[in-house]
């Protein structure tokens, strides 16, 4: 009996196609999620005790005239039924109109545009810094015996337990006020980025390092690592060329959540270090009971977070396409 052949497609093209398909599905899902988020915030606004018009017009401190109230009521369609208000609301959102912050008397989108960059900068810097720390700490020290592993593990647990707000205050006291190596406030220079980024990166690095170390040690016990050694590869080559890719996977899937944690942390850090950023804006908006600004910032942050999660998911798929195989 002669060999029967089956058509086999080019694996590289297959992989890209699968990735593309997944991206489309996730984006569609993301849009659905954002729609739900917008709906939730709409109802949050309506749920609030008190008259929403007053909130929009200036809160308890503002003192709008009855004419202003009437005008706002008509403009925001608050005299119309709930369903119509909802449609107006969605319509405004789609046009990019997030309302006006009355504590700053500016459109919310303007506030976001001015402040968003600094937060993005801080978040990305912190994430990169965290990963650098993780790689430095884990790849070289994993699987090298009890003492080294124990010390590294202790360092990781300790870092992960540090609350970032406390770490920020301590770093500020020691390095900015005490040693005067870095400026205590500001968002312009690179130097002003370091301390806030560190106070976010260190706890995150501790957390991710724990997971990555465990994963790395598990991976180094796998048979294919032994096979790599039998080919004559050095230990470092084995770690970097083979084990790393596998060990990174749990850390990558955590990175999605990590971005959310970093954004949360950015709120506090921007306050401590007096940095520009949407985090600090959000905080101040909550204190000032400036609802349009609070909701606007939350929506945009949520959108960014959803997008970041989709990117992380695609990155995971790129590194480990095996789930595609399981489906084949």
């Amino acid at each position, binding site marked *: *009996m*002669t*060999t*029967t*052949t*089956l058509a*086999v497609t*080019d*694996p*590289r093209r297959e992989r890209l196609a699968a990735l593309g398909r997944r991206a489309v599905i996730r984006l569609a899902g993301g849009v659905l999620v954002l729609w739900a988020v917008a709906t939730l915030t709409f109802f949050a606004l309506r749920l609030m005790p008190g008259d929403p018009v007053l909130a929009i017009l200036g809160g308890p401190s503002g003192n709008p005239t009855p004419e202003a109230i009437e005008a706002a009521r008509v403009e925001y369609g608050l005299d119309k039924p709930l369903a119509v208000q909802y449609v107006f609301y969605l319509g405004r959102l789609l046009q990019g109109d997030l309302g006006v912050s009355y504590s700053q008397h500016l459109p919310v989108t303007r506030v976001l545009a001015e402040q968003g960059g600094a937060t993005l900068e801080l978040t990305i810097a912190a994430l990169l810094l965290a990963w650098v720390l993780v790689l430095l700490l884990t790849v070289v020290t994993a699987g090298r015996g009890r003492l080294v592993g124990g010390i590294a593990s202790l360092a990781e647990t300790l870092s992960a337990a540090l609350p970032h707000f406390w770490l920020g205050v301590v770093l500020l006291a020691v390095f900015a006020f005490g040693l005067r190596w870095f400026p205590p406030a500001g968002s312009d220079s690179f130097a002003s980025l370091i301390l806030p980024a560190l106070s976010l990166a260190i706890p995150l690095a501790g957390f991710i390092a724990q997971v990555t170390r465990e994963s790395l040690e598990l991976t180094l016990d*796998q*048979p*294919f690592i*032994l*096979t*790599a*050694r*039998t*080919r*004559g*590869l*050095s*230990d470092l*080559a084995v770690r970097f*060329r*083979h084990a790393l*890719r*596998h060990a990174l996977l749990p850390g990558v899937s955590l990175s999605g959540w990590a971005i959310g944690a970093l954004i949360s942390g950015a709120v506090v850090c921007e306050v401590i270090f007096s940095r520009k950023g949407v985090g600090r804006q959000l905080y101040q908006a909550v204190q000032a009971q400036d609802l349009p600004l609070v909701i606007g910032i939350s929506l945009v942050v949520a959108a960014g977070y959803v997008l970041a999660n989709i990117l992380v998911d695609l990155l995971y798929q790129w*590194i*480990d*396409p*095996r789930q595609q*195989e*399981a*489906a*084949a």
Partner: protein
Amino acid sequence: MSDKTLTVEGLNVAFDDGSVVRDLSFTLPPGRCVALVGESGSGKSVSARCLVGLAGARAKVSARRLSFAGHDLLDLSERQWRAVRGKDIGFVLQDALVSLDPLRPVGKEILEVLQTHGYGDRHTRTARVHELLERVGVPDVELRARQRPGQLSGGLRQRALIASALALDPALVIADEPTTALDATVQAQILEVFQQIKARGASLLIISHDLAVVAQLADEVVVLRHGEVVEQGPMQQVLRQPRHPYTRALLAAVPAEHPRGSRLSPERVGVRIEPRARSHGDVLFEGRGLGKRYLGPDGLVRQVVQGVDFTLRAGRTLGIVGESGSGKTTVARIALGLLQPDEGEVLYRGQPWNRPANVVSEAVRRPLRGEISVIYQDPLGSFDPRWSVAQILDDALQVAGIEAPARPARIAVLLDQVRLPAALAQRRPLQLSGGQRQRVAIARAIASEPKVIICDEPVSALDVSVQAQVLDLLADLQDELGLAYLFISHDLGVIRHVSDDVLVMRHGQVVEQAPVEQLFDNPAHAYTRRLLGAVPRLPGSGAELVVPPLDLVHEAFDLFDETRLWKIAI
């Protein structure tokens, strides 16, 4: 010109908790093959790893002499070892799915050897990769080289793994269980690849637990037990006229050589219960026209099982044999009533037991479930991880309707029936050996006094001698309790030993069905003949290994994982 002989004299390996290999000595001249044979814990794998300096940092290795091609292998530095590994000595591990990096294309894995040892330039290396893959029999090399191990079938990826070991034409190739986890037909093909390696002049060191596999390749056999050499000599002599009782027991335990009714293990411990009169011949289980489809996410419909009929009579054993992708395990689950067929029906004692579209509900089946039991390949996974042996059996007795006061006594009886000491009752399955766990699973299965036991590859994961004991136990219980068995296995030797009637399955269909002796002596279907020819036999059995050609259709079925179908609705 150094003579490429491997000389091992007085090899000792010890770990912190004791000595693992003691005084192992053998010589391997070029172009010949030595096999290290033993069960788990015999030290054979550790010895092999010592020959490439990978026994582990905690291993204390010493020897009177350890040399290859004139180089002294004792006390080599790590850098010196790296020059030897891959270049002078190639190593092949078992199961390429985990022995090759799952995230890298297999071509890259082979390339890595060439890069590490500085072979040629980019173009010559790629050409060499393709050449190697062709040499080991992989079709469409350019395409296959870019696939990852998970995208290749078992046979093709094992070939790729071998290719990576052969990349620099090492004079010595060490293979640690290279054909375990492979189908019989694929195994035969891989053995042929190794024959070719040997024919090209390399020396071969094979590590295996399978004496029949070893018989196909080895010139000399070394039998290890608990780290000590028990017997050693030319293959024909060791396997045909063994001197040591352990070797004899190992040979006696191979099921393929022993017809139905004979014992595999040397002794039996425990009290023997008087055999009951067998109710012979009533049809218990009947499957008619069973079919099961699977709709994949890529839109393709796969017929996992098609048009399968089977008949199981009381007190008899029906063996279902097939390779991976044959659908035999799915048939077992349909028979158990855990999976509904898309077509056909299963009748138990004449009554409908399992039909498509939930026509027969679980409520109808449940009262009868006590009469049908099951034992699995991996007993540990089938036990609740929190429970001790006593709790597992207690739970089974509870479902069987035994009252609480009577249960402890029944547990003691069950343990006795499966020849386990009562002291084990308080242990957890994690603390038991593989053979003991399977006995507990058997005890649980007979707790409800069933009429049928469905055995899904129950001995595939066990050592040969333990396998022998479990098979004997199952045979004894069949006599004592009048049980009928539906026995699923990929191992033809086991099937031959246990079955009264055999069903051969391939790609979801029944290819042949016959009483056991008729099937094995006079197979009717071409596939059955091919399958039987591909099973390695011990010397003296008179059967020659017939290597079937590469079958890519089969390889495609191999890739599909049946377990994806089973989402048990609770």
